[in-house]
C-alpha cells in the first residue's frame, strides 16, 4: 500500500501565507477601487448618474412689451425657432439631404452643404465627439414657416425608393424625416413702428444673462430686468429614451414673464416731431437734429426724437453714432437760449425789473480786458425785457453782474444744470458747470449768455418747463406705469417735484418776456397764427477748444405753447446746419411746425384772435381750467 503524503503543519504554512497574502491583496485592490469610485470620483460619477436619470430644463420667460401712453405696442416679442441639422444624421448623407432641404429653408443649396460639411469635418476630428452634435442652419424662423418645413419633410423621400421599400429603408426614411432637422425655441424682438422712437426704445441683442434677449440700448437696456422677467426651472426624471417624466418633477418653478412698460410718449406726437426733424434735416443738412416735447405740469416726455435715426431691428445697419440720444447724452455751450436763467434769477431776487434800462454799450463792451459783442447790433439803452427779446449779450452780462457770482452759481445749480435730470435712460450726461473758484474774472459775463458751461437739451427743456410750470421744476417722466404680463397694473409713476426754482410771479413775468421774444424779437418764425407762443432762440458757435470754428453753429429754440398757460414745452436743436443760419431761422420754424400739429392733435383751443386778444386769452384759460385737453386718459 503506497504511503500517502500528508503535509505537516510546517509544510502547509507557506501556502496558507501565500493564499492569505493573495486574498488580502485582492481585497486591498477591491478596497482601493471602492475608494477610488466612492471618494475620488464621487462627484463625477454622481453627476453622470444624475445626468442619466434626471433632466433639468430652463423655461424662458417672455420679454415684456414697451407701449406708448395709449397702449400702442412699440416693441414686442415674437416666438421664433432656430433650426438645427443633426450631425449624426447628416454624416455621409450631406449630398443626399442638402438638395431637398435647402429649398425648404430658402437657402442656397451649395451654401448649406458647405456649411454643414465644414461643421461635420470639425465634428469628426474630435476624437471623443463631445460638444454640440447639431449645427445651426437657420436662425429666426417663424413658427408658421417651421410648421411648413416639418410638413414638407414628412412628405420628402430624399431620393429613396418608396414603392416597395425594405424595412431598413423604411426605418432610414423615418429617421431622416424625423431627425434631419430639428428646432429650438427662440425669441425675437419686433418693432412695428420701425425707426420711430428708436433712440428711446433702444435695441436688444443675444442674452448673456440667462435670457434669450438682453437690452443693449435705450429703455430696453435701462429696464432690462423688468422687461426680462424671471426664468423658470423644471427638474424631473427622464426615461431611457430621454423623455421627461412630468409626474416625477422635483422642482417646478414657473417662469414669470416680464412686465409691460407704458411710456409717457405719445406716438402720434412722436411721429409729428420725427417728420418735422426729417424735413428740417432735408432742408439744412445738419450733422444731427433733435427735439423733445415735455408736458410742464407733470414733467412727462411726450416725444423725444433725434435725426438721423436707426432701425432697432437692425442696429448694425446704421453707424453707432446714429444710436446716440443727443437730447440726453450730448452737452453743449447752448448760447443765448440760456439767457432765460440769469434773467429769471435777477427778477426773482429783485435786483432788476423788466422796465429797468440797461446801457448796452452800442454793441461792444470790454470787461476785464475781454471784449463782448452783440453780434453786430449796436444797442444803446434797452429795458431788461428788451435785453432778452433782442438777445443782447451785453445786457444779460450786466444783469449777471448785478446778480453776483454766488447767486448766479446757486441758481444754475438750483435749476439742475450740474446733474442728470433723472430721465430713466442710460448714458445721461450730468452737464458741466464749473465752481466759482475756478471762474476767471469775466466768467460771470460769459455764463450769462450760455458760454463756459455745457448743458444737455433735456436739462434746458426741464428748466423752461419749470418756468412754464410756475417755477416748479419737475423730474422728467418717461415711464408712465408698469403692467404685469397679463395686463393688470403693477405700479404707476407719479410726477415728482424736484424743487421750486423761481416764484410763480417771476415765472409769469418770464413767460411774458419770452412771448415778446417770439412776437417781436429773434423768434418771430416760431410764432403761431392762432396760439400764443413763448420761447427763446439760441445760436452757439462751436470751437475746437482753442478758437471758434467759423460756420459751425449749434442752433436751438426752446418754447412753450400756449404762452399764458403752457401745455407743451418744445425744445428743438439743429447742430451744424450746412446752410448756416441761426436758432431763429433754423430751429424756430421746426418748433412752429411741431407746435401747430401738436395743438391740433391735443385739441388745445386757440388763445390768440386778431383784435380781441384779451377775450381769446379768456377762452383759452377757461378751456385749460376745464380739463387737460387730450392728455388725460
Amino acid at each position: 500500500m503506497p504511503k500517502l503524503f500528508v503535509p505537516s503543519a510546517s509544510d502547509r504554512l507557506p501556502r496558507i501565507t501565500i493564499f492569505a497574502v493573495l486574498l488580502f491583496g485582492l481585497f486591498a485592490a477591491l478596497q482601493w477601487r471602492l475608494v477610488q469610485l466612492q471618494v475620488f470620483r464621487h462627484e463625477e460619477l454622481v453627476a453622470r448618474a444624475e445626468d442619466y436619470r434626471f433632466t433639468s430644463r430652463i423655461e424662458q420667460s417672455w420679454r415684456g412689451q414697451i407701449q406708448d401712453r395709449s397702449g400702442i405696442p412699440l416693441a414686442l416679442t415674437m416666438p421664433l425657432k432656430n433650426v438645427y441639422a443633426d450631425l449624426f444624421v447628416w454624416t455621409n448623407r450631406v449630398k443626399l439631404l442638402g438638395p431637398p432641404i435647402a429649398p425648404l429653408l430658402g437657402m442656397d443649396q451649395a451654401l448649406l452643404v458647405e456649411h454643414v460639411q465644414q461643421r461635420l469635418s470639425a465634428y469628426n476630428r474630435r476624437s471623443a465627439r463631445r460638444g454640440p452634435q447639431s449645427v445651426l442652419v437657420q436662425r429666426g424662423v417663424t413658427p408658421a414657416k417651421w410648421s411648413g418645413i416639418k410638413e414638407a419633410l414628412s412628405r420628402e423621400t430624399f431620393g429613396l425608393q418608396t414603392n416597395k421599400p425594405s424595412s431598413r429603408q423604411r426605418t432610414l426614411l423615418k429617421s431622416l424625416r424625423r431627425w434631419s432637422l430639428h428646432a429650438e425655441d427662440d425669441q425675437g424682438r419686433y418693432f412695428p413702428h420701425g425707426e420711430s422712437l428708436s433712440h428711446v426704445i433702444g435695441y436688444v441683442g443675444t442674452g448673456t444673462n440667462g435670457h434669450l434677449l438682453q437690452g443693449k440700448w435705450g429703455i430696453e437696456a435701462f429696464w432690462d430686468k423688468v422687461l426680462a422677467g424671471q426664468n423658470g426651472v423644471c427638474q424631473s426624471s427622464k426615461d431611457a429614451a430621454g423623455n421627461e417624466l412630468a409626474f416625477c418633477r422635483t422642482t417646478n418653478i414657473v417662469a414669470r414673464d416680464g412686465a409691460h412698460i407704458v411710456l409717457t410718449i405719445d406716438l402720434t406726437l412722436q411721429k409729428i416731431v420725427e417728420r418735422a426733424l426729417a424735413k428740417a434735416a432735408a432742408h439744412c443738412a445738419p450733422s444731427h437734429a433733435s427735439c423733445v416735447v415735455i408736458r410742464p405740469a407733470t414733467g412727462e416726455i411726450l416725444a423725444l426724437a433725434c435725426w438721423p435715426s436707426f432701425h432697432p431691428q437692425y442696429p448694425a445697419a446704421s453707424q453707432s453714432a446714429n444710436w446716440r440720444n443727443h437730447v440726453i447724452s450730448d452737452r453743449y455751450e447752448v448760447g443765448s437760449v440760456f439767457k432765460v436763467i440769469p434773467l429769471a434769477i435777477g427778477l426773482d431776487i429783485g435786483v432788476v425789473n423788466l422796465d429797468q434800462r440797461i446801457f448796452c454799450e452800442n454793441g461792444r463792451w470790454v470787461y476785464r480786458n475781454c471784449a463782448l459783442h452783440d453780434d453786430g447790433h449796436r444797442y444803446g439803452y434797452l429795458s431788461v425785457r428788451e435785453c432778452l427779446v433782442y438777445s443782447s449779450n451785453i445786457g444779460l452780462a450786466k444783469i449777471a453782474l448785478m446778480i453776483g457770482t454766488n447767486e448766479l452759481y446757486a441758481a444754475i445749480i438750483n435749476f439742475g444744470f450740474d446733474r442728470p435730470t433723472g430721465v430713466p435712460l442710460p448714458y445721461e450726461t450730468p452737464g458741466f458747470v464749473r465752481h466759482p473758484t475756478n471762474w476767471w474774472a469775466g466768467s460771470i459775463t460769459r455764463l450769462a449768455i450760455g458760454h463756459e458751461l455745457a448743458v444737455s437739451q433735456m436739462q434746458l427743456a426741464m428748466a423752461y418747463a419749470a418756468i412754464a410750470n410756475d417755477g416748479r421744476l419737475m423730474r422728467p417722466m418717461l415711464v408712465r406705469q408698469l403692467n404685469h404680463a397679463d395686463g393688470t397694473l403693477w405700479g404707476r409713476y407719479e410726477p415728482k417735484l424736484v424743487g421750486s426754482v423761481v416764484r410763480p410771479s417771476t415765472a409769469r413775468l418770464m413767460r411774458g418776456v419770452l412771448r415778446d421774444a417770439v412776437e417781436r424779437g429773434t423768434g418771430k418764425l416760431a410764432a403761431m397764427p392762432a396760439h400764443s407762443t413763448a420761447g427763446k432762440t439760441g445760436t452757439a458757435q462751436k470751437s475746437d477748444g482753442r478758437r471758434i470754428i467759423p460756420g459751425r453753429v449749434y442752433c436751438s429754440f426752446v418754447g412753450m405753447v400756449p404762452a399764458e398757460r403752457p401745455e407743451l414745452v418744445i425744445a428743438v436743436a439743429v447742430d451744424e446746419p450746412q446752410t448756416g443760419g441761426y436758432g431763429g431761422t433754423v430751429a424756430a420754424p421746426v418748433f412752429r411746425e411741431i407746435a401747430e400739429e401738436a395743438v391740433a392733435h391735443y385739441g388745445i383751443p386757440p388763445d390768440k384772435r386778431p383784435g380781441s386778444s384779451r377775450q381769446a386769452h379768456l377762452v383759452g384759460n377757461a378751456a385749460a381750467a376745464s380739463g387737460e385737453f387730450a392728455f388725460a386718459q
Partner: protein
Amino acid sequence: MRQNPFRPKACPPSGELNCAGPVKTMYPLEDCAANNFGSSGQQFTHHPPDRRFTTVVVLVSLVVGIMMLFVCREIHHSRQLHRMSRVVAAADAERKQWQERQRMQLVREADLMATIQNQAHTPRNSNGVTRILSTRAR
C-alpha cells in the same frame, strides 16, 4: 433551556454514548418515534415530511406571489406614469403652440396698428385752423 421537540430529552440522539440507561444500538429513531406517541398512541409534536414540504412550498409561493404582485404593481404604476407624463407633455406642447399663436397674433395686430397709425396722420396747412389729425384727438 428550550427542549427540541424533534429530540425529546428521554431519547438521546443516535451515536450519543453517554445516554443514561440501556443503549439500543439497532434502531434508535424508530424507538424514539414510538416513544413520541402517548399511552393512547396519539401524535403530538411531529409532522410528517410531505406535509412539511407542502407548508414550505406554500409559504415560498406566497412570498413569491406577493413579490410578483408588487413587481406587477410597479410595472403598472410605471406605465401609468409614462402615460400620464405623455399626456402632460402633450398638454404642455399644446399650450405652447397656443401661446405661440397668440403671440404671433399680437405681432400681427401691432403691425396692423402701425400701418393704421401711419395712415391716420395727414399733413395740413398751417392756417391757424385746428382740426383733428388722428384717431386720438378730439
